[in-house]
């Protein structure tokens, strides 16, 4: 589904990604872990098409498409979804409008008719229940005045409505208390499906107590140093990131 080969990227003159290789197949959940500044968020941003990053080398193939050649909205319509680490507040654009416009953009791409108001509302209601969100959220500005936890829940709500093929979650667990973390994890787990891949970018292991990954990668200084199953995350928790770095240096 997603093949990243020898990806190099920089911000200005600063090289951040220095040769990332990653293979994600449908149905898999991958966790990309790493210390601060390792390039985790850069990787998520480059995949979603955020401006300000320059890819200097490498390729990203998504469902046979050259992902890096696509505009952010083309990626979204092709089924890529990024849950933001810092969701943006947009006063004056309300949540219902955004959800509907986004859903219809994706449906048009798939050759499906736009949703009518009735179907849209019943769909949204179900998903909001899942995320334990109050309906009043719909008429509020996008993320406007939301608490940290509400913003993250709103990201997963959007993801649940848009049903992406590839979901990238950038530090979705940061700033969440344990109850909110459960709700968010529950939302993500409900979206696990054989034709959908999920990539979690996270600093801490605790999210993985709730969302069990198939593969864990350690990203450090712009490269994936080690990959393994979920036990790697536990080992990291015990031994810290330095352990992986030292092992890599020896090898």
């Amino acid at each position, binding site marked *: 589904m997603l093949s990243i080969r020898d990806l190099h990227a920089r911000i200005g003159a600063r090289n951040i990604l220095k040769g990332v290789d990653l293979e994600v197949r449908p149905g898999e959940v991958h966790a990309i872990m790493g210390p601060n500044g390792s390039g985790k968020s850069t990787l998520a941003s480059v995949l979603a098409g955020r*401006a300000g990053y320059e890819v200097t080398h490498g390729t990203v193939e998504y469902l046979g498409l050259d992902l890096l050649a696509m*505009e952010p*909205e083309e990626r979204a319509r092709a089924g890529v979804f990024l849950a933001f680490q810092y969701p943006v507040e947009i006063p*004056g*654009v309300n949540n219902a409008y*955004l959800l509907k*416009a986004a859903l219809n953009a994706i449906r048009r791409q798939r050759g499906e008719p736009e949703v009518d108001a009735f179907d849209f509302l019943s769909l949204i209601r179900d998903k909001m229940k899942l995320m334990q969100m109050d309906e009043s959220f719909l008429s509020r500005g996008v993320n406007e005045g939301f608490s940290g936890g509400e913003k993250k829940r709103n990201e997963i709500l959007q993801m649940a409505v*848009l049903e992406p093929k590839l979901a990238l979650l950038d530090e979705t667990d940061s700033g969440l208390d344990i109850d909110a973390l459960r709700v968010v994890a529950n939302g993500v787990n409900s979206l696990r499906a054989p034709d959908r891949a999920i990539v979690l970018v996270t600093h801490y292991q605790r999210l993985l107590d709730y969302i069990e990954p198939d593969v864990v990668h350690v990203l450090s200084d712009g490269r994936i140093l080690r990959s393994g199953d979920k036990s790697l995350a536990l080992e990291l928790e015990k031994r810290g990131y330095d352990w992986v770095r030292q092992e890599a240096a020896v090898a």
Partner: protein
Amino acid sequence: MNAALAEESLASYGVAFESARAVAGETEAVRSQAFARFAELGFPAARDEAWKYTSLRRLESRRFQAARRSADASDRPDVAALSPCRVMLVNGTVVDRSALPSGLRVRTLDEALRDGEPQSALLRVATGGGTERFAALNVALCADTVVVDIDERAAPEHPLHLVLVSAGAEAHMAHPRVLIRAARGSTAGIVLHHAGDDGAERFVNSFVEVEVATEATLRLYRLQAAGTRSFLIERIEATVGARASLLMHDAALDASLSRLDLNVRLAAPGAATELSGLFLADGARHLDSHVRVDHLAPDTTSLVDYRGVAAGRGRGVFNGKAVVHVDAQRSNARQTNRNLLLTPGAEIDSKPELEIYADDVKCSHGSTTGQLDPAALFYLRSRGLGEREARSALTRAFAGAVLSRMDLAPYAAAVHAVLDERLNRLLETPA
């Protein structure tokens, strides 16, 4: 502009004045005096502070014929009705008056004079400010004065839709003049609607005087949709009495060059005003709004919130001034101006000013000019919205703060329609 050209320009207004004088009748003396004042002031010099960001050289170089006094049906363009009661002026002359509800009267200058209204009230030259010259020219050349009276304690069910049309194939000028008097305790709404076609370059020099008497509430909805090739200069002079309110909405959407001088005097204790405006300076439009509020009495309140959007080669100017005079204790003056530049060539100049001579007051002003937030744009695009739709949604959100306050549905719909059409067109080619 060199002196010879200025003289030539003045001479052409002189020709128009000579023909106006021939039919001026009893108003000749007042009009002559006004024309002399215009001739004395002339067009603003380049260094004139009140015209710092708006040059009138283009206007000064043009020659306009005085519009024919005609009531030709063919001159009446199709303007959608924003209320069942409507009065229409075409090129400065009243051509159409629908049935009006009780409590609301509309007369022409001649009718008001016949009723014994003093000339001094009907044809007053407002003094001071950058547009005094045009206020004088208006008195000299206006065809009709539309006198709108709202009777004491009247509350007409529908607002009055006052349409000032500039139309026709000739490059002519019109000097519409409106006097609105809301008598004690009345409550009414008036839509002041500038409309025009693009058949020719035209000059509209409008003067509007507003008196809101004790405990009256007047809602004024201005819709500036003059022709795209028009020069529009408008001065609105409003006086608000004790415990009275002037609530104004302004949507400046068209014209090649427009200048509004909106002067509000809070003249008695408890007078209040809310002025909420939006201007859309795209294409090559130059839209200038000068808003001044004078707090002359204690316990007066003013709230000014203007938002501007510019794109293309468009240019916006906002000058907001609140003056709190020495007697205006416990006054409250708040002023905000926010501007959005959609493309790199666009420009908005904003100058908020505050002059305070009383000591027990609450005043604030703020002004910001910026672009669409790139983070918000990316967020929307990452959800599948095209760049055009994302930019449009954010621009609407920006204008929405002002639009959402427009409490007259047909007026709000008219503003939305223009905004939608123009935003769609202007976002077709992303910056």
